[in-house]
Structures are given as C-alpha cells and as structure tokens.
C-alpha cells in the first residue's frame, strides 16, 4: 500500500479516500464511472460447475443433502473469490450476499414446493368425480370405492359457520381498537388477542368440549367444531383487520369528519372500504389457518363415514379428520384416499385464496385515469 508513505495521519480520513484521490490525480480513468465487471455468463458458468459438482458429490457420497450443501458452499466461495480477484471487494461482497439470499429463498420455498408436489403426485390419481361425490358409507377395507363428499360438506360447513361468527366479532373488535379504543380496556383487549394468537388448537378444542359438551350438555356436532375453530380464527381476524385499518391514512378520516359526516358513517363508508382488500386477505388467511385443524375436531365433531348435512345435530366428518382417519386405516386404498383428500383440502384453500384476491382487486381503491 502506497498510502503509508503519504504521511497523512489526520484522523477521520480513510486510506481508501486517500488512495482514490491520489489515483484520480495520476490516472483519470480511475475516477471514471466504469468498473471491471465479470462477463454476464461467468456466474452462470460457475453455477453450472456447482450443479456438476453436486452430481459428483452425490455419486461419491451417496447423500443428496450433503452433496447439495457442499456444492452450494463451494459455489458461493468460488463466485466470491473470482469476483474479488477480477472485480473489486464491493462487488465480491455483493455477489456473496446475493448468493446467500438466493440460497435462503430456495431453502424456504423447497419444503413448500415439495409438499405440494408430493401431495399432487400421490393424490392426483385418486381424484375423480366419483371420489368427490360419494361418502365412505359401507366401504370395507378391501374396497377401492368410497369418497370424501361427506368430509367436504363437513369442512365447508364447519369453517363457514366459524367464519360467520368470527369475522363480524373480529372486525368489530378491530374497529373498536383502531377507531374508538383508548386506555385500559383497549390495552386489555389487545393483550388477550395476543395471548389467543398463541393458543394451541387442542386447548381451544378442550375448552369447547368442557363448556359446550360437558357443561351445557350438547352432543358432539359440526357446530361444536365450528366454535373451536372460531376461537382460533378470531385473533387472526382481529390482528389483520387492525393492521389494515391502521394503514388507512388519518387524512381520510379527517376529510370525512370535516364534511360533517358522523364518525360511525365515516368508519363504515370511508375507512372500511379503503381497507377492504386487506381485510378480505386477512379473513382468508384466518380461514386457511383453521381449515386444516384436526385436533379440536377430533374432540368435538365425532367422526362419521356417512353424509350429514346438518352441522347442528349428529356427528360430521371434515377433510383433516378424514385424512387422519384414512391414514390410520392401514390399507393401500385408504392411504390413496388420504392423499387425495389432502390434495382437495389444498385446492379448496387455493380456490378461496384466489376468490379473495379477485374480490380484493374488484373493491380496491382505484387510481386509474
């Protein structure tokens, strides 16, 4: 480093600055806006090398996870080193961080994609109109027949009822917290909503079991399950709606109030429509959160193999219960049915999600000309 002989001992002046300054005087190109850059293909070539290396490791070590891990580490190392050598330190750090972040992304998506892929692979073959429109009534262990109609009915009714109760209560709570709540009561409500967010689903199930079935003496039914699901949905609805309402600019409330519009109409006609898209998304998230719940349903819904369209009396089934039940049946046909039911559950969540997005887009604030 030639910096040392400048004799510049002033504090606060970094060596880099001095170096750049001197170089700038000597060579006008150094101060220019161009930098040495690796050709676009080089990182991809290194990535290709990484893939080859993975295969080599796989063949020698016979362990996919280890092979991918080792090749990944070597890939990141080589790319950073090449960049350090042929570009500069800042680029090298940039490439290092970019690789790490991309890796993290892949690691995060991998389980999701594999769960979905595997479920489709195992479940797709069994899905058929027959499977979707028949119950398990009278299906023996050696029969390839039977379906999930009763479970779909049960899930839709139980989750629908739960949403019917939880969404208005949750939304009103959120409106109270954001628009009206001040002081102790609001703080207490927020605290309990937070506590409820972490409530294990089996506890919600046991609570309803103790309260609804043992204390009040009702029988197990779809509605008992709905009550438990409602308890689990509520905090998610409150939390997401609260965040969405908070995002509505205060200027809009003031504009409305300054027109002499009463507060309740301001909330109803200005604040809620502005937050509508986000609230719908939040409700969908809360439904997705509870639609796969098994534990409380095991306690509360009973488990039937036949169709029961009445959620208020008699046992019902539900998709997660069905998957649980079939998985325990221990024969090949039952296992296929379990996978197909799991796939159906995922598809239902996806359809609900898409519907929510469409509604949200249709109702979203518009800025078009």
């Amino acid at each position, binding site marked *: 480093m030639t910096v040392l002989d400048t004799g510049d001992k002033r504090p606060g002046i970094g060596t880099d600055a001095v170096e750049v300054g001197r170089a700038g005087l000597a060579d006008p190109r150094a101060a220019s806006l161009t930098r040495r850059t690796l050709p676009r293909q080089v990182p991809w070539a290194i990535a290709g090398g990484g893939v080859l290396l993975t295969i080599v490791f796989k063949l020698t070590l016979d362990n996919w996870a280890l092979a991918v891990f080792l090749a990944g580490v070597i890939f990141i190392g080589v790319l950073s080193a090449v960049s350090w050598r042929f570009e500069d330190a800042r680029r090298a750090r940039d490439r290092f961080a970019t690789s790490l972040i991309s890796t993290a992304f892949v690691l995060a998506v991998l389980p999701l994609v594999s769960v979905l892929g595997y479920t489709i692979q195992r479940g797709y073959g069994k899905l058929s109109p027959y499977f979707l429109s028949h119950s398990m009534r009278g299906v023996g262990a050696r029969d390839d027949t039977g379906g999930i109609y009763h479970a779909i009915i049960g899930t839709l009714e139980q989750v629908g009822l739960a949403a019917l109760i939880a969404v208005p209560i949750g939304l009103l709570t959120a409106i109270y917290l954001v628009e009206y709540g*001040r002081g102790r009561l609001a703080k207490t409500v927020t605290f309990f909503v937070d506590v409820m967010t972490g409530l294990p689903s089996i506890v919600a199930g046991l609570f309803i079991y103790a309260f609804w079935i043992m204390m009040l003496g009702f029988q197990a039914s779809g509605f008992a399950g709905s009550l438990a699901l409602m308890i689990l949905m509520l905090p998610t609805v409150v939390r997401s709606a609260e965040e969405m309402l908070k995002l509505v*600019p205060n*200027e*809009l409330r*003031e*504009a*409305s*109030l*300054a*027109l*002499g*519009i*009463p*507060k309740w*109409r*301001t909330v109803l*006609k*200005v604040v809620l*429509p*502005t937050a*509508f898209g986000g609230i719908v998304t939040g409700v969908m998230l809360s439904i997705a959160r509870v639609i796969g719940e098994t534990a409380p349903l095991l306690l509360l819904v009973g488990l039937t193999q036949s169709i029961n369209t009445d959620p208020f009396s008699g046992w019902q089934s539900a998709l997660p219960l069905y998957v649980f039940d079939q998985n325990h049946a221990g024969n090949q046909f039952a296992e296929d049915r379990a996978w197909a039911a799991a796939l159906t559950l995922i598809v239902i969540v996806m359809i609900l999600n898409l519907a929510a997005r469409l509604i949200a887009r249709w*109702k979203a*604030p*518009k*800025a*078009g*000309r």
Partner: protein
Amino acid sequence: MKATTTRTADRGTDIRTDPEAGMTKRIEVSGLNAYYGSHKAVEDISMTMEPRSVTAFIGPSGCGKSTFIRTLNRMHELIPGASVDGSVALDGQDLYGSEIDPVAVRRTVGMVFQRPNPFPTMSIYDNVAAGLKLAGIKRKGDLDAIVERSLRGANLWTEVKDRLNKPGAGLSGGQQQRLCIARAIAVEPQVLLMDEPCSALDPISTLAIEDLIALLKERYTIVIVTHNMQQAARVSDKTAFFNLAGPGQPGRLVEIGDTETIFSAPTEESTADYIAGRFG
C-alpha cells in the same frame, strides 16, 4: 336556501337558526387556549373574522396556526388528548356550548386540508357527493345538480365533466385539491377553513385556487393559513400574525389588521421582521 331548510329538519341541534340570514357568518373568538394533553399549543387568542371576507393566518411553523384553525370547526378535539377552552362564537352562538353537536358544527364550518385527500375508493362524482350522501341528507334527484354546481364553483367542472365516474385519485394534485374544495362546498357550509391549501401545489394550480378563493369569498367567510406572504397579500382582506416566544412556548396572536396595513405598516416589530423575512 332550500337545502338549508331540509337539513335543519332532521338534526338535533342545528346552529343555522335562520335560513334567510344569508350564508356567511361572523366568527368571534375570545380567550381561546388549545392543548395537546398538558402541553399548551395556543394561548389566549381573541379575534374576529368578518363574513364575506378572507382572513389569512401567517406565522412561523409551529406557532399554532393550524391548531387554532382546527379549533374553529371542532376538529382539534379529535386528536387524542387534545382539548380547548375559551369560546368560539358563530354569529353569537358558542361552538363549544354543551348543547352543540360537533357534527353539525363541522357541517356548517367546512375545511380544506394541506394535502389533497380525495376518498380513494370513490369516483369524482361520489367524492363531491360524499358529504351529502354519507350524512344522509340528500336524495339522488338533486344530487346531480349539486355536484355540478359544486364542481363549477371549484372551477373544475370543464376538466372533469366527461369523467365523473373515474376515480378521484386519478386527478392531478391541483385538480385533487379543487375536488376537495368542491367536496367541501357541496355541503353548503357557511365558513370555509383552508389549512395551507396550496402548499403542495405548483404555481398554476395555486393561481387557480387563489382565483377560486376570490370567487368564494362573496358567499363564504374564509379563513386561510398560508406560509406564502404574497399569497396572504393577494387573497386576504385581513391578516393575522401568529408567533411563539420560543421553543415549547405556546403560540400567540401577535396582531391582526387589514392586510394592507399589516404588510405596509404593522404595529409590532416582529410582524415587520417576519414579513420582511428577517426571521422565521
């Protein structure tokens, strides 16, 4: 005037007692203090704003102009912890009296804010009609006429008449601000408060709004907060200068007088200094 009488019928306390008395009202403020929690933001203000005239508030940032203007239509108290004492009288009726409905006050004393804030979910038409529709005081029949009249009044009609059903958020900043003015005058207030209505706008939109103020003052009592001396000199009949003694001190009214006098021969030295740009 017909609109006024229909509205008088369905609200408990309506402070527009006599519909024949004309649209504009005199505002008399006396001994007004405004607080945020325990912090006093504005101290001991007494002044009168004449009907059919424009009163401009000038003064350095943080001197309480905006706080004060918001006490004139009871918007100040909407901020958690905020409170007011003293009196604001609209043609003799105290707006802070116990029997007064703040919602009715805000319908009578309209407000235009610093940043244009059209309702993002509504069309241009619905934005203008919002005050009437949402307060539940107008049927569909005469809405069309009121919307057109308000947009004409805000000098925006020719620009938007072919796209009334398009979203209001799609207009330019200046147009949005005029839309907000149209929205404010659609409910036929008697006083119009404007809190730095041009500070987010370019000179051409500013000019359009200043022209509009000159038109509106024939029908409304107008109070405008501005940081722009030339604007205060151009549009106002009276000018009030606010100042504060130091950081953390409450804002006070230094003096109020005819705009010409304030700008040429103010009584207080600090006013002259401020107008000349020597501080603040």
